[in-house]
Structures are given as structure tokens and as C-alpha cells.
């Protein structure tokens, strides 16, 4: 049984009076330990699909089952708890909290756990060491380069040791070298830490680092 099962999912956005169908009866299976790249033109529904898998949006029809849990049936608060337990998020624009240091940003998801202060510190330091920023812990986001910010965001995504990492165009805003670093890091998370990764990208070069590439076209997988 696949870790992630997307079953006959449809998503329709309502805008004022008319409806925008984004995904049509889409099904997708992602086995545990996979590194999948979702590709496709702008507006094809990549982000939408990723959001459904990550439990930050709900399908209009169909189910998303992750590790046996049908997350489309969970209550809002149960879903929030589920995300914090199972998913690590990486965004195109890093989305760090500007008033918090790298350390505090990475610590953020751990504040929702019962871990002690000392335990949290150990984990945060480890995560920052993994992304190679052990020496930038007390820098604020604006004191870091884009690539470094994204690595902090990756540290934040892995610090809770989630099952799945979702990344929406993680290199979309980075220069070549930084993008390369980030992709190498993600490949390492997959191979070394056995994370299942779903990555949306425009960049064919980035997609090559994944094992599997899936293409979306107007809301359908092709």
C-alpha cells in the first residue's frame, strides 16, 4: 500500500459567482521513500494538489489517504495536529518569521511538542547542522542570503522528523548555485534520512534530481 493515496480527487475553487475547476478526478499514488517531482505549466494545479496532499486544503470530491488516515475527514484541529506530526513544509519564498532568528524559526514547530527546552535546542542545532548553517543560528532572516534562508526553512521542515516533506518550487527564487545546494540537500534528505518528498517545480533540471516526474496539464496527470 502506498504511503500517499490520492483517490478521484476534484478541486473546484469558488470565485464570487462562478466556479473554477482546478483538478478533475485525479488519482495518484506515492510510495514511502519516494522523491517525486510535480511538473506542469503555470495554473495547471500543482500547488493545489500539493496542498491537498499536505493537508492544508481539502478536496471538493474524493479522498486523500496518508499512511492509512483519510485526512479529508479530519476536523480542522485534528488536521493541524496531523500536519505538525507528519509534514515538513518548504515554500518558494521561504516564509521565515522575520523577527525570529534562524534558531527560533527552526524551533517554531517544536513549540507545539512536549519536548523540553534542552531537547529542543539539541534538535534545532542538529537540523541547522544538517543544512550547513550551524554557524548562523543567531542570524535574522534579513541577515542571510536567499539560499541560506531556504536552508533554514529546510531545517524547520525536518526538525520535527516528519514522514513527508512537501516543497513548492523550493528553488524558484534562487540563483543556480544556491538552487543546486538546496536540491543536493533535498536529495540527501531522501536518501540519507529516508524522507518521502513531493516537490513542485518548473525547472526540468531540478526535476531530474527526483526519482519520479509527474506532469500536470489543466488539472489532469499526464
Amino acid at each position, binding site marked *: 500500500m502506498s504511503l500517499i493515496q490520492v483517490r478521484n480527487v476534484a478541486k473546484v475553487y469558488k470565485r464570487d459567482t462562478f466556479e473554477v475547476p482546478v483538478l478533475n478526478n485525479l488519482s495518484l499514488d506515492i510510495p514511502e521513500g519516494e522523491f517525486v517531482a510535480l511538473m506542469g505549466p503555470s495554473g495547471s494545479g500543482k500547488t*493545489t494538489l500539493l*496542498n491537498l496532499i*499536505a493537508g*492544508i*486544503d481539502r478536496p471538493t470530491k474524493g479522498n486523500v489517504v496518508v499512511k492509512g488516515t483519510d485526512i479529508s475527514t479530519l476536523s480542522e*484541529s485534528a488536521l*493541524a*495536529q496531523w*500536519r*505538525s*506530526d507528519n509534514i515538513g*513544509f518548504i*515554500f518558494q519564498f521561504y*516564509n521565515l*518569521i*522575520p*523577527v*525570529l532568528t534562524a534558531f*527560533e524559526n527552526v524551533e*517554531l*514547530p517544536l*513549540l*507545539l511538542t512536549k519536548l523540553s527546552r534542552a531537547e529542543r535546542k539539541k534538535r534545532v542545532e542538529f537540523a541547522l547542522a544538517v543544512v550547513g548553517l550551524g554557524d548562523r543560528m543567531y542570524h535574522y532572516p534579513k541577515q542571510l542570503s536567499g539560499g541560506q534562508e531556504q536552508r533554514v526553512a529546510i531545517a*524547520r521542515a525536518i526538525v520535527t522528523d516528519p514522514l513527508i516533506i512537501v516543497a513548492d518550487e523550493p528553488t524558484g527564487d534562487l540563483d543556480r548555485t544556491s538552487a543546486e545546494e538546496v536540491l543536493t540537500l533535498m536529495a540527501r534528505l531522501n536518501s540519507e534520512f529516508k524522507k518521502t518528498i513531493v516537490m513542485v517545480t518548473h525547472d526540468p533540471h531540478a526535476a531530474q534530481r527526483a526519482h519520479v516526474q509527474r506532469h500536470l496539464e489543466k488539472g489532469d496527470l499526464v
Partner: protein
Amino acid sequence: MRVLKLIFKNAFRHKLRTLLTVLGIAIAVTAFGLLRTVYTAWHAGLDMAAPDRLISRHSVSFIFPLPYAYLDKIQRVPGVEMVTYANWFQGVYIDKNQFFARLAVDAKTYFEVYREFLLPPDQYEAFKKERNACVVGETIARQYGFKLGDVVNITGDIYPGDWQFVVRGIYQRRDETVDGTQMVFHWEYLNERMRTDAPGRDGDVGWYIVKIADPNRSAEVSSQVDALFANSRAETKTETERAFQQSFIAATGTIVTAMNFLSFVIIGIIMLVLGNTMIMSARERTREYAVLKTLGFSGGHLVGLIGGESLLISIAGAGVGVLLTFPLVEVFAAALPKGFFPVFTIEPITLTLAVLSAITVGVTASIFPIQRALGTRIVDGLRHVG
């Protein structure tokens, strides 16, 4: 609470904006404190009013005198324990900016009825014995340095002429709410001078103060007194001391009522100042709140985060404002003519109200931003650019 640090950091994200907001709240709280202090000072007279005292005055206006002959008749009304009387003498002491009540009173009974003025027996005796003796309240005694044996010169206006009074007594106040700014002297002395200087004005009494046995019967006794003089040349209007002072305040206190109203307008202004800041912040942080929700933070966390920040700012503002209120009231009191208000202090209730208002404002100002943060779906919040 683990998000406490984030509350602090958020509050000081835009240092200038936060500083201005805190300052705005502080100024408003100070203005509130000052206005309320003036308001409560104005009303202090009401709290001093004794329930067992009636004031009987001319039915047309307090400025028209009543005949001295009424004294006997009022005394005989059932339920009346004791009657005393007073005239508003006014006059000028030093200059026109020295406000304190100067009254011609019945030396034999005035202090019997006004038990809250504590006068040592020997001073009381000395006062009663001497025609032109006077008694001053401890507050003005302190202010003007009056000592026993001092001569106080007053230039008459309502009662023209030069007047000299010898201080034979200084009364203490029974408690904080008692007026310590009265100067009283013999009505007899005034009356004698009127008899020679202004015949026709002798025998005038400003108002009678009627001490009654049972405060619950004040209405009954009042109407009995008034009935005595119905259809006479000088009809009376008798009411409780509190009602009397209330009517006095009503006549002069429109501005004070406006002040009371303004003090609440100010709370509205604080609300807008803080509300504006919080709404701006919440707008800017739409995406951050969505990120926090994505990471698994609950609605309760966001409520704490936003509400906490709002409260932090409002309480900081209230704190600064309260601290500023003390020196400001002092400055204001110094600028006022001396004795303008018998009691002019910052009441604890004023400060409590100010702080409570600030807290209410803090909570209220965060309602809209919280609603917005909770109501925004994660996917929309993440797409927000701002």
C-alpha cells in the same frame, strides 16, 4: 507560554509605530485621568453630603435671602432635631483668585450640625465668645499659614466694607472627603454691621440647614417646612443636602458633564489608535499567520499571539499614561485658583477605570485582526502578497 517571545518580538517589529501607539494611548489615558479627576473633584461635594441634613432656601433662587424669623418656625416642625443657618459672604481675600467658602454662620449651632468639622472644645469656646472671631478649615490654614490669633482681612463685595476676623479655631476634617476649605464667622457680627451700614439687609439668612432625626423621613419633613411658608413673601424650597448640591452642580456643571462625556470619547479614540495599529500589523502578517497555521499552530495560539500583542501595547500605554497622570494633575492643581476644588485628588477608581479601559481596548482592538487571521484559509493566506 512558549509564544511569549514572539508576542514581544512582534510588538516591537515596527518600533516607531509601536512607540507612537503606546504614546497615543498614554496621552489618552492621561487625559482621561485628568478629566475624571476634575469630574470627581466637582462631585466630591455630593459624597460629603450628609443624609440627615436638609437645606432650606428661597424657592426662587439660592441668592435670595430668607427672614431670620423662619428659624423658630422650622425648629418646631416634628422630626427636626436642630436648625442652623448660614449666609454666603464671599468677599475678596488677597485677590479674586483665592477661592474658598467664606460664610457667616450661627456660631452657637453650626458646628453642632456639621459634626464632620472637628473643632477642639477650647477653640470652640473661644470662637463663640468673640464677636469677630472666625474658624478656618485645616486645608486653607495650611495653604495660607493661618494660625490662632491671626487677623484675616477681607474686602467685602456682597457685603461691602473692610472686614477683620481673628482666627480662633482651626477645624480638622473627620476624613478625606470632608471639605477643609471653609472659613466661617459670626452671623451676628455681619447682622450688626448690616443694621447700621445697610438697614433693610439685616435679618437676612442665606439658607437654613435642618438636621433631622430620621433620614428616611426627609421628604416628609421637607414638605412640612415648605408648607409653613407657602404663599408667603419668601417661600422656601427644602431638599436634602445631596439634592441641593446636585442642583448646584447642575447649574454650573455643564462643562463638567461635557468633561465626563469627553473622557469616554477618549476611550473611543484609544480604541481607534490601537485598532488601527493592530489591523495594519495583522494585514502585513497575513502570510505569517498562514505559515504558523500550516505548521500546526491552532486558532487558540493565534488568539494568544494577536490578543497578547494588543494587550501588551495597551497595558504599556496605560502604564505610561497612569505614571504621567500624577505629575500632570499636580501641575493642573497648581495652576487652578487655590481652593477652587475643596478636594482634588486622583481617585483610585479613576486609575482603575483607566487601566480597565485600556485592557478592554486591548481586547477589543484585537477582535477584528483575530477574526481576520482565523477566517483566512491557509491557502489564501499563503498566496497573500503584502
